[in-house]
């Protein structure tokens, strides 16, 4: 009996070495940030470095200014159809070289594949690829003057975008033209802390990701999307954008939302964001967008 217990004790000590909880040291990585917009000119690419959790973050200090950056338009077979060279402009932000000479070709083509390639001294080559969503059009809106929480929320009729292999997914963005504390809608007025918050932080906000299947398809093939009231932070002139996002943004935003809480993971369990950046992290995404300007008025 004693021997059995001794074996058990020793066995337990040995098995303790099986603990999967293992801390890995922080390793600095390149961060990519770029949002390409369908049918718009190529957008900037920003490069920076991650910082250790105990180090104060200074965006300027983390910027990478000496990289060589290209964005390639890929052919169907994956080969490079066209390349666009980028040049460093300011604090880690790279812009396409001489956009005037590129002309029409500098516009991001919907449903095409683009690849970012950045040679970063000390880090090697960082790459990421996006498939750009198809463009869509705003066919009409129900009204440009909307009573907050009135009987008729803002609705927009849009043509349907396309994305290979899945339904469209949207995020709504509202941006107040003239944000002011006294213009905050009641819910956001409760949230706003004058000592903690800057009103500019509330100017532009986005909804969570919303699948196209939430909306009815009209007989003419368009869909009518409805702005949720939670996205309305201010009374007054507001630009409402409807964005169809690519897979990279979809994964990034949904995982970022989980990082910030609210999923089925246990409290204190924080997953890494889902990026699609090779040899680095960040977001190289694309989206198609339409927008409308509306006036939000108090109900009474």
């Amino acid at each position: 009996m004693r021997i059995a217990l001794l074996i058990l004790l020793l066995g337990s000590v040995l098995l303790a070495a099986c603990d999967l909880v293992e801390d890995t040291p922080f390793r600095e990585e390149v961060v990519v940030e770029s949002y390409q917009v369908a049918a718009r000119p190529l957008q900037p690419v920003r490069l920076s470095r991650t910082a250790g959790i105990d180090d104060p973050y200074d965006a300027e200090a983390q910027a990478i200014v000496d990289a060589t950056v290209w964005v390639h338009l890929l052919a169907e077979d994956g080969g490079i159809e066209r390349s666009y060279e980028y040049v460093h402009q300011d604090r880690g932000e790279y812009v396409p070289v001489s956009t005037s000479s590129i002309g029409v070709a500098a516009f991001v083509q919907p449903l095409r594949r683009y690849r970012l390639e950045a040679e970063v001294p000390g880090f090697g080559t960082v790459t990421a690829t996006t498939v750009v969503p198809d463009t869509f059009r705003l066919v009409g809106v129900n009204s440009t003057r909307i009573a907050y929480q009135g009987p008729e929320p803002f609705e927009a009729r849009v043509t349907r975008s396309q994305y290979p292999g899945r339904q469209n997914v949207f995020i709504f963005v509202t941006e107040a033209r003239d944000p002011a504390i006294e213009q905050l809608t009641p819910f956001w007025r409760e949230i706003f802390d004058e000592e903690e918050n800057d009103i500019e932080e509330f100017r532009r906000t986005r909804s969570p990701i919303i699948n196209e299947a939430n909306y009815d398809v009209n007989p003419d093939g368009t869909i009518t999307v409805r702005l949720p009231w939670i996205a309305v932070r201010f009374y007054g002139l507001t630009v409402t954008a409807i964005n169809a996002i690519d897979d990279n943004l979809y994964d990034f935003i949904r995982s970022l939302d989980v990082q910030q809480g609210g999923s089925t993971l246990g409290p204190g369990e924080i997953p890494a964001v889902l990026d699609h950046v090779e040899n680095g992290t960040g977001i190289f995404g694309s989206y198609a967008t339409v927008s409308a300007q509306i006036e939000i008025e108090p109900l009474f």
Partner: protein
Amino acid sequence: MKYRLLGWMLLLAALGGPARAQERASVSGFVRDATSGETLLLANVVLEGTTLGTATNNAGYYTLPNLPPGAYTLVARYIGYRDFRAAISLAPGEHLRLDIDLVPDDVALDEVVVEAERDEAETRAIGVAQISTETVKRLPTVLEPDVFRSLQLLPGVKAASDFSSGLYIRGGGPDQTLILLDRTAVYNPSHFFGFFSTFNPDAIKDVRLYKGGYPAEYGGRLGSVLDIYNKDGNRRAYEGSLSLGLLASRALVEGPYAKGSWMLAVRRSTLEPLLAALEGQDGIPDGFYFYDVNGKVNFDASDDDRLSLAFYAGTDDLDFPFIDEASFDLRYGNQTVSANWTHLFSQRLFSNFTFTGSRYFSRPDFLFGGTSFSRRNNVYDVSAKGDFEFIPNERHSLSAGFWTGNFTMRLRDTFDDQEGLRERIQTVYAAVYLQETYRPSSLWMLRAGLRGSYYEEGNHLRLEPRLSVEYQPTADVRLQLGYGRYYQFLTLITSELFSAFDIWLTTGENVPPAYGDQYVAGLKTTLAPGLNLDVEGYYRTMRDLFELDPFLPDAAGLDYGDLFHYGDGYAFGTEVLLQRTRGRISGFLGYTFGVTARRFPNLNEGEYYAPKYDRTHDLSAVANVDLGRGWRFSGVFQYGTGQAYTEPQGRWKLVNDPFTSVATNVLVTTFNNRRLPAYHRLDAGFSRTGPFFKLGEYEVQLQAINVYGRRNVWFYFFEFNDDGTVSRNEVPQIPFPLPNVSLTLRF
């Protein structure tokens, strides 16, 4: 190979005893509480001085078949009761019906030491743990005595936090435990958002936990089974009790009638005066209550036929407008009903038929700034089950049964009054099992079973072999081995924070059932009368786990299979339990070494990780001391390795985010890469029992939870500061000594 062995055993059973049985005698009957007539489950019945013995089954029935005619001393034992002894004489061919009434005794007398019998065969079977309702009521508790909180003290059973009554058993999550109340599945047995379980300890007769390697008569879960039986009601006299607590009050009435007994237990929260006093203050809901009702009626139709009808209903209701234009309303609960018929075809053939109905509902409604979100989840489970137990002789015991039903799950989400998700799954399920227990000698016991499960949704048909072997080289030592394959057709979407939003989902056409194998080895010893030492080791696999994808932002328009992410896992560990069951000082010391791991594609880069409830070391010490003159002390000390959590290693920032006007901060993390500080807590309490104006008896309990104010960490959250730093904020579990007072009157 396993199936061949099973076949041989079943053949042996069929060919076994009947040839000699005609010459032999037998004795059988029910074992009951002498004061209330309640049947006692897993009571031991042995013939003194022989190797013959058995235990009562789930109906409190025992059979000792195929006995040589002669004179015996029959002894019946049950923890908390005085031993029963009777001299019996059996003539050739006699079938003696002997119903036994055991007299309760708070301090069991050491008057009989039964040696060499096969007693405690079931209570100390592999993977089995039992806890008495008296223990549940005596242990120091937060606000309410709770079955689940008490079970969490057993080795191999863990709690996620001070605020969660969920059972994490041998590395499995709460959905891997089948919870049965009077043979009826209960799907979300929690009150107060998961703080404690719905089972009213006043109403409960028996709590049995199969931590692993459970036998073929059960199925449907990967890990374990919790089998709870409500009281039948007092068959001898009318009784009642009233308990007043800080959170809720309870009442129980029970009594006999001409052909049986009845029982009704009610519990309701009593927070309304407190809420009224705090009305208008931040964080105080407009209304909150919960209640549960348990009832049972028994009809003793004849000596061989007993019928019962039992029901349970419980609901939690919260109305919480927490700021202007933001509110949260929630209503959730369970209802069960079961009709049971126990029939003795003969002394050797016992049967039980049950018809069950179970409903779970959860209806949260959120309103934020004029945008609503609502969820409606309903589970309906209607089933019929039958169990047969045939004992041809002392060597063989054959069990068989079926369980079939109709399971319906409905889930509907709306966002901003638009329906985003509507799922309805209605499926027939069925299971049959056959199990043989073979005792070739007093030293060996082999149990082999095979369960076949069918689930119509997805057309899944699975076979589940079960096997266990027990060798008893001496009267005080048992060596046990067990193996089993288990399938699970359901998955629970739960948050450790609030179980009120729990959702059950099922397998489907493209969603195969999860399955796993369990290997268990045990060493059970009796160091001295009433002093047991049990050691069990286990290893289990979990494959094809399907859980709601935690990264899923919106389920609208997705195929059912796309709602899930799929993964696997494993767990292994060793449990040690030193238990004293007799004397003025009783209790146990439990230790668990355990490892559990999961692997899902989008977490930890697809590598195995330790889930939050993984605890390497876990220690519980429970003591009940009878101080005399009606005074009693109860104490519980718990220690556990800190749970896994994610400590970010780095961060970065998006400064050009076109969708928001603030820079977006992102954490660089390795999933669950650190452990919280070790958990420990001491709870203690005193109780005093005495006469209450000659009308009955009172009991006053004074308890303190977290006596020395240990600030155990529940979790950390991380905040980005304006100066570019990240601060770690601690959310504690119960951080200070918490008193608890209750008064119970028994009539």
